[in-house]
């Protein structure tokens, strides 16, 4: 784990020393605040459900932006050679990068905890449901970040990595949105595999094991694909 923490620490330092981290965090919190404030001030609804309904759309744009440079920039700048010739295993590199991303996302989600706290001043809130929603948001973000990391492993260019990541997530989002138009036999399969569908189940306050497992499974699949893509580099 020494290598994983060292890499995560390095990514954090780069994020703190460059504007990109601050730009992404500020933009996320601004848009996030708008989604929350819209329900509260325009529609007079002192609840978090509307915010969490829109969160997948927000993450769809921000997760690839956070992950785009992680592996693509290493290959573009040639620092992958430095990294690959240090005594590290490739899975440790993937995990280190991913831990850094997850830590950033955790901080952003923690910052949004101000919203339910402010609601609690106005009245009673359903703590259990909000906690379940946050867990769902974290698991969905974890899945999206893994997809963003995989997109970053496919190319040397960060902007291409962003477009690829966004494309993959948009495809999943649209498939979920168009679920009712699919043939019935397909609807069951898509509903079973769709991360957003399982996220929505959890928003109801029910943390079913199957929902958690499916979101973690998608995360594992894309982390494994990222690792495989990084391994392939040596043989190309």
């Amino acid at each position, binding site marked *: 784990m*020494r*290598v994983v923490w*060292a*890499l995560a*620490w*390095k990514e954090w*330092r*780069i994020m703190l*020393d*460059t504007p990109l981290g601050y730009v992404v965090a500020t933009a996320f919190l601004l848009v996030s605040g708008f989604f929350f404030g819209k329900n509260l001030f325009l529609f007079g609804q002192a609840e978090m459900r509307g915010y969490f309904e829109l969160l997948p759309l927000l993450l769809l744009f921000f997760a690839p932006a956070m992950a785009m440079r992680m592996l693509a920039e290493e290959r573009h*700048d*040639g*620092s*992958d*050679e*430095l990294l*690959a*010739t*240090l*005594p*590290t*295993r490739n899975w440790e590199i993937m995990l280190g990068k991913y831990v850094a991303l997850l830590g950033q996302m955790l901080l952003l989600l923690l910052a949004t905890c101000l919203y339910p706290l402010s609601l609690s001043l106005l009245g009673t809130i359903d703590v259990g449901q909000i906690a379940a929603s946050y867990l769902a948001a974290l698991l969905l973000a974890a899945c999206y970040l893994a997809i963003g990391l995989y997109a970053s492993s496919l190319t040397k260019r960060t902007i291409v990595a962003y477009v690829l990541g966004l494309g993959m997530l948009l495809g999943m989002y649209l498939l979920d949105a168009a679920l009712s138009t699919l043939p019935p036999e397909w609807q069951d399969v898509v509903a079973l595999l769709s991360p957003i569908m399982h996220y929505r189940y959890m928003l109801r306050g029910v943390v079913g094991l199957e929902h958690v497992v499916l979101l973690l499974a998608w995360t594992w699949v894309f982390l494994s694909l990222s690792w495989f893509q990084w391994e392939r580099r*040596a*043989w190309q």
Partner: protein
Amino acid sequence: MIQAERLTRLFGRTPAVRELSFHVHRGEVMGLLGPNGAGKSTTMKMLTCFLPPSSGQARVNGHSLDDSLAVRRSIGYLPENAPMYIDLDVQTHLRFVGRMQGLPQGTLADRIAEMARVCGLEQVLRRRIDELSKGYRQRVGLAASMLHDPACLILDEPTTGLDPNQISEIRQLIRRLGESKTVLLSSHVLAEVEAVCDRVMIIDRGQLRAIGTAEELARQAGDGQTLYVRFLDDGRSVLEMLATDGVEAEATGEVNGWWLHCPDADMPLAERTFRAAVAKDVVIVEMHARKTSLEDVFHRLTASRGSA
């Protein structure tokens, strides 16, 4: 030490390195020479486990390349163009590399301070790497490669971008390191290889062309002897006399200046020239022998590929 046996690397069907075998002993600095695309960097990338060989085997510090982690723990590697994290400051970059190498927290700060002193980085430890000159970046790369005090150093063009003073310092440093460590370095600067390396290996199109000390290579590649001579007046009569002994003359471009080349290495060329000049009553104002240099050897062995 480094032992490579029939090391081969293919890119598609194109061989970048073909059946390369060599040894570098502990306490020895080996220079790797070759024209662009000769396979120098590919050889280094294989020895540092960045690229797996297509066939063949190598051992670095007693570890097979199959035991990649053990090899990478025991080497310090400076890749070509010294890639690094330019958004970090020098100290943070070195700390990251040290932590990845597994240096304990207690000794890491001391090693960074020591390497900063050795590589002349004390003044820029807090500066971001993207604000540094190429020479400084090269020194950061060198410091990072030596941070964990590895038994073997593999340096791909370590003095690129340095000014003459820095080059001299780094050469001295490599020489010093070479007394106790195994050092393999590639360079385009032949004078540098001659000055720093105990032995030299010349490769071309992925194949080993020659290996040995600079003197051994010069002797092996030497084809006769060459003498520079400048006469006070026209010395053609002397040249005609020498031509009967098989000596060829080539004008140097200077007034009455000539290169005399004799295929027979044992013939006393200087004495013959002197005696011929006396016989023809021609005055010699300058005369000296030209030794076969590493540059001559390099050009001879890689001539079909053009420049170094």
